[in-house]
């Protein structure tokens, strides 16, 4: 069985060959073609806000371009790219945290989301599939941050645990554990709302 970084390294062998030959521009073009969407999705999963995600993705790609000449292949290319992206997102989160103060509105919003989580959300048993999809999306948003971003990335990345692990820079076992807990928490919330009939969700997913 191959490890995920080894697979990623094999997948990026053409880019590595270009880098070794000093062809930075074509190598970066390949990086853009292969990783641009993934970088954006990682930013979306980490930052939620589409505008902030776009800015962070753009900054990450510029930073990758500036640093690609000094990439030393100690880590796989994808690991290196995702690490740069995560750092940009962390910077964006820090910046946002500095700007945001714990105003009354923020406290109110926090309290509202907690109430929703406690089950005071309007019941949606027997509602339309779109309402259920919306409810599910809201429940995912209300998950603890680590669970939310792992679960979100898992579906963004076509259910690839190894890719999510590489993107978040954590072991695959951690991703599996987090996914298990996130899904169990979601199932528990659905049970509390009387929405734990599998057929109901199979209809929703149609």
């Amino acid at each position, binding site marked *: 069985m191959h490890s995920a970084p080894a697979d990623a390294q094999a997948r990026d062998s053409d880019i590595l060959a270009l880098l070794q030959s000093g062809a930075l521009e074509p190598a970066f073009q390949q990086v*853009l073609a292969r990783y*641009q*969407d993934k970088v*954006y*999705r990682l930013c*979306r999963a980490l930052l939620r806000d*589409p505008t902030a995600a*776009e800015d962070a*993705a*753009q*900054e990450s*790609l*510029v930073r990758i*371009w*500036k640093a690609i000449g000094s990439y030393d292949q100690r880590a796989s290319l994808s690991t290196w790219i995702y690490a740069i992206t995560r750092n940009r997102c962390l910077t964006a989160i820090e910046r946002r945290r500095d700007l945001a103060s714990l105003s009354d509105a923020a406290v109110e919003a926090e309290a509202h989301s907690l109430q929703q*989580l406690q089950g005071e959300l309007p019941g949606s048993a027997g509602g339309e599939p779109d309402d*259920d*999809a919306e409810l*599910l*999306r809201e429940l*995912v948003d*209300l*998950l*603890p941050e*680590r*669970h939310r971003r792992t*679960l979100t990335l*898992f*579906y*963004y990345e*076509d*259910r*690839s*645990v*190894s*890719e999510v692990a590489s993107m978040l820079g954590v072991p695959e*076992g951690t991703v*599996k*554990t987090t*996914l*298990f*807990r996130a*899904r*169990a*928490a*979601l*199932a*528990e*919330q*659905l*049970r509390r709302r009387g929405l*734990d*009939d*599998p*057929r*109901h*969700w*199979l209809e*929703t*997913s149609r």
Partner: protein
Amino acid sequence: MNPKDECMNTDPPRGARLDAPVDAPVDAPVDAPVDAPLDTALDKALARVLPPPSPPPGFQARVNAALARAQLSDAGRAASRALALRDQRSQIAALDADYLRLRRRTLGTLIGGAFAAGAAVAVAYPYLQATFGPNAIFVLACVGALVGIGIGSASWIGRLRLISHLERRLGRL
């Protein structure tokens, strides 16, 4: 293993704690038994409500513009660095040239002074001998010493004045 099958693995992963109370907050380990049909249905529903987002329209163009800006600023930085280096090199060359010129001038002054002193002695010595007799050589030596001390003192006084002048100027700044 097919990545798509990974989500169907409903076994609790290694390390998951199964002893949490029912009303535990959602981030705590849960002890609810895994409902396989619900998990499968939920997986499909989640795949539907969490589609991979595509970058917004124009993202590629904006990235290219940002890259072009970055390249321009890099080029600008490189150009100003080269300019500063060239400037520094020319200033160092000018300083070196000044130093050499100063040393040449000093050497010239010394040689010129020695010849002038020799000529002055050649002219003055017969007169001194006539006036002071055998002590003329001591008189000449004393005059030489006085002139030397005078030049040295003047040089030091000038240097001290220059230093205090510079200190005053710098103090004003």
